[in-house]
């Protein structure tokens, strides 16, 4: 192992590791290989410290392009492993100084890894996202008042209604008051809609959770990444027995069709990232 290389970890799986791993290409174009200890196999790549040393890593993680490419590459290897064996996925940028260090980690945490493998065996992670169906385009935006902006006139700082000739007292409701009433009604309607959507999301989560052996709720996603303005009210991961996976998928479809308030989306199957926390973790 040369001084300028580090070891990037993808996943840990019990021996014997599945065949074919060494044909894979991992992050930064590096080949994939296996490091073994204590009955466990660590799936790794050797990568240059120039990319994953502490300083460059911190910089690179803030570079969305680098992050996207690396995340995808990492996930591809992890997915390849979990598709043919039970494996514990590791998050990106888990880097070690050398193979010996990797072996140390395998040995040190062998009990915890074994326990996690037990939890994950024969199970798969599925993701469900729910968006509130309401759109808020009826709000605010163009709300022309009864009196056009110029009527109250004057420089900023004038108190509207006190300038001579402004603010018609006659006729139906005065425009400022009407505006306030309209806005209040709109905001209340939106609060109600948000509340109902959140309540429905909770119900969906509970119902789907009853079909899973473990659940994990994630925060709503960055709108810049999802590319949509819609309000995400549920973002959850479910660990489901493989034998029940089809039943789970059907339940999602049914729940989607049931309520007008939410749109549900199923993603998966995923490597069980959301359920891979092992009991002993060194920080």
């Amino acid at each position: 192992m040369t001084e300028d290389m580090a070891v990037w970890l993808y996943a840990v799986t019990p021996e014997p590791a599945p065949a074919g791993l060494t044909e894979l290409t991992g992050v930064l174009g590096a080949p994939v290989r296996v490091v073994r200890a204590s009955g466990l196999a660590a799936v790794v790549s050797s990568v240059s410290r120039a990319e994953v040393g502490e300083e460059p890593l911190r910089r690179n993680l803030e570079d969305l392009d680098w992050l996207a490419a690396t995340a995808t590459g990492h996930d591809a290897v992890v997915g390849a492993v979990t598709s043919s064996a039970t494996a514990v996925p590791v998050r990106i940028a888990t880097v070690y100084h050398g193979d010996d260090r990797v072996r140390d980690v395998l040995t040190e945490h062998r009990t915890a890894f074994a326990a996690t493998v037990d939890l994950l065996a024969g199970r798969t992670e599925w993701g469900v996202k729910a968006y509130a169906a309401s759109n808020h385009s009826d709000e605010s935006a163009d709300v022309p008042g009864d009196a056009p902006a110029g009527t109250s006139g004057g420089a900023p700082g004038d108190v509207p209604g006190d300038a001579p000739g402004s603010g018609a007292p006659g006729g139906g409701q005065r425009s400022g008051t009407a505006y306030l009433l309209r806005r209040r009604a709109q905001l209340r309607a939106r609060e109600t809609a948000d509340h109902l959507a959140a309540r429905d999301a909770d119900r969906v989560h509970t119902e789907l959770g009853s079909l899973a052996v473990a659940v994990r709720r994630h925060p709503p996603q960055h709108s810049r990444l999802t590319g949509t303005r819609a309000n995400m009210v549920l973002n959850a991961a479910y660990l489901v027995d493989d034998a029940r996976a089809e039943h789970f998928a059907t339940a999602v479809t049914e729940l989607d069709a049931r309520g007008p308030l939410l749109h549900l989306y199923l993603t998966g199957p995923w490597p069980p990232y959301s359920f891979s926390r092992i009991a002993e973790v060194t920080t």
Partner: protein
Amino acid sequence: MTAPEPRPPLPLADRLDSDPENLERDLVALVLTIVELLRQLMERQALRRVEDPALTDERIERIGLTLMRLDERMTELCDHFGLDRDDLNIDLGPLGRLL
């Protein structure tokens, strides 16, 4: 084998967008988002205040007209910069969206 040279980090401006026109638009959108945040905060506070029975109709009307003018002004500003008012927002990650 020598290690490859690490790439210098991109300046923040480039990270926002590589196209200068889009960059300017992004900055304007950011500015207007803050303005819109202030407008919304004021509006909500005003809506709470007008529940106060002690406020005169005159006062309520004045508050309403001010807010209405602000709302119209926001629309004008967005139109002027070619931005969709519904698009104004900032995603603060774990804190959710600003608006």
